[in-house]
């Protein structure tokens, strides 16, 4: 694992992060020359305070589009980064037993707070080579069918399920369509709705449409502070509704896809704080926050019987939607 400092300098920097990163570089340089000089030490401390302030200023006022960029940040922790920090003895299991093994979804059993759970999630790659293997976290039908196989197994053996959502979307390709991408996603929605064990879903990065939801029919849905969840990418929405790709920032704002928006719309149950400046600035701190949140929800869910879980999950999704219904005349006409 790269050290914290190394990560800051190696990861790509977003435009609005630049002032912070540049100041940090300056501090690093000063440190090298500072030696025992009191003045220099004082200067460094004051710059450090300035960095914290600057970061707070920038992040207090992020636009939805900036949040989209953060949710896709190449330096962000991915599913396996969380699993390795939040659980012990993770044993990855492979394959859908039908066609193949899709590296864009990972899954396996692990110990969470000492008891076995199934972890399953979308997996992006960090390098170009990894991303070719992981297909940028865009699953094909065999990925969803692997997830389904593992979730059904977890249910059979009474193990809770933790889903990590982080995908631009299900893979749009000829082979994926041939093998029934739509059917694979649909089946997961149906089966997850009826599983008799607790299901937790953590949206850790990009929640891209149906491809995200296929791991998202859960009893509790928590979202990291700078994660997003949307019905279509802002780029796709802009192209269709604005007929202009450059309107992606407008589309991002219009779709209400940030964690705080979705909390307000009562789609997610909790927003989990990230490390200051975003999850990519401190994997460990963000993973600790997520652990605390999931532990809390899982403890509550463990008190429910399978029947209660199924009923509450059904009602949770049953209530999602916004419409009015007037009853001033009889229904038939």
């Amino acid at each position: 694992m790269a050290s914290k400092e190394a990560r800051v300098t190696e990861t790509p920097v977003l435009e609005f992060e630049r002032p912070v990163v540049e100041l940090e570089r300056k501090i690093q340089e000063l440190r090298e020359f500072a030696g025992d000089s009191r003045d220099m030490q004082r200067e460094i401390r004051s710059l450090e305070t300035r960095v914290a302030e600057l970061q707070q200023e920038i992040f207090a006022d992020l636009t939805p589009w900036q949040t989209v960029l953060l949710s896709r940040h190449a330096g962000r922790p991915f599913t396996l980064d969380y699993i390795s920090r939040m659980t012990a003895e993770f044993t990855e299991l492979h394959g859908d037993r039908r066609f193949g093994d899709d590296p864009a979804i990972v899954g396996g059993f692990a110990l969470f707070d000492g008891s076995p759970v199934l972890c399953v999630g979308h997996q992006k790659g960090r390098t170009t080579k990894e991303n070719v293997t992981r297909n940028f976290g865009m699953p094909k039908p065999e990925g969803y069918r692997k997830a389904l196989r593992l979730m059904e197994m977890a249910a059979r053996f009474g193990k809770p399920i933790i889903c990590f959502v982080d995908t631009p979307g299900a893979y749009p390709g000829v082979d994926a369509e041939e093998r029934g991408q739509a059917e694979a996603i649909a089946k997961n929605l149906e089966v997850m709705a009826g599983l008799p064990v607790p299901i937790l879903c953590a949206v850790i990065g990009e929640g891209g449409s149906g491809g995200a939801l296929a791991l998202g029919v859960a009893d509790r849905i928590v979202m990291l502070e700078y994660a997003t969840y949307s019905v279509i990418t802002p780029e796709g929405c802009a192209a269709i509704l604005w007929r202009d790709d450059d309107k992606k920032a407008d589309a991002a704002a219009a779709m209400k896809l940030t964690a705080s928006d979705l909390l307000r719309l009562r789609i997610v149950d909790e927003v989990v704080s990230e490390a200051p400046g975003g999850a990519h600035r401190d994997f460990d701190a963000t993973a600790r926050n997520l652990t605390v949140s999931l532990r809390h929800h899982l403890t509550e869910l463990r008190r429910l019987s399978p029947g209660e879980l199924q009923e509450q999950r059904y009602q949770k999704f049953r209530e999602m939607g916004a419409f009015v219904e007037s009853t001033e005349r009889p229904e038939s006409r």
Partner: protein
Amino acid sequence: MAWYKRTQDDDEVAGEKRSVPVGVFTKCPGCRETLLTADLKANADVCPKCDHHFLMGTRARVALIMDEGSFVEVDTRIESLDPLGFRDSKRYPDRVRAAWRQAGTPDALISGWGTVGAVPVEAGFFAFEFMGGSMGSVVGEKVTRVFERALERRVPALIFCASGGARMQEGVLSLMQMAKTSAAISRMRQAAVPLVSILLHPTTGGVAASFAMLGDVIVAEPKALIGFAGARVIQNTIRQSLPPGFQRAEFLLKHGFVDCIVHRREMKDSLTRLMRMLIPTDTRATAS
């Protein structure tokens, strides 16, 4: 003079223009023949020369499938809200109002109960003419109620799909309708209440990736476009041309994702036969 009239530009969602025939003459995109629109109407909007299936108005579809006088429409008073305060070039509520005026229905689904070949059913019919049949909260709620009523009455549910997918203007709330409707199917499945989904042109996106693909039996109209991702998106991803017949009903039949392709004129008879066979039988011996 409007001899040929286009009815809606939402058609291009599907990547191919297909429209409900109006005007005196209609040119068939299948065989390029010029047809009398009256002849087409008499033939369920199917070309008498080449069997090209035109889009069919939703009310006409209800009349074609349901036994005469049996259909009772319900949930007619559910109307959409604007939960996101959404605005692109138009405000979402204005778009809905315009679509309502044009399509004559307050949202993209007509639902109710009745009989098909004397079999009692709960049925939902997508109105593609309403914002491309897109699914927002109203459609999701109405589809869910179709399934819940079927479950309660223990009668088969029929869902006629024609949709570009989830409705962007309601954001993630639209996405969640996929989960809501699929959860209702999970209960039907447990209780052995049959669901037949009928895939019309086009059935794509979030509708394809939920109840459309969850029918116990999945029937498609000839050459209907069916798939998850749009052709343009796929083309931009793979940067090569798509195989001929890609995402057509025949392509899905070949790959094992629909049970059968049924001509529109035979649809009612086929569904009747199917449902008579699907209604659950108690297989335990009745004499003890």
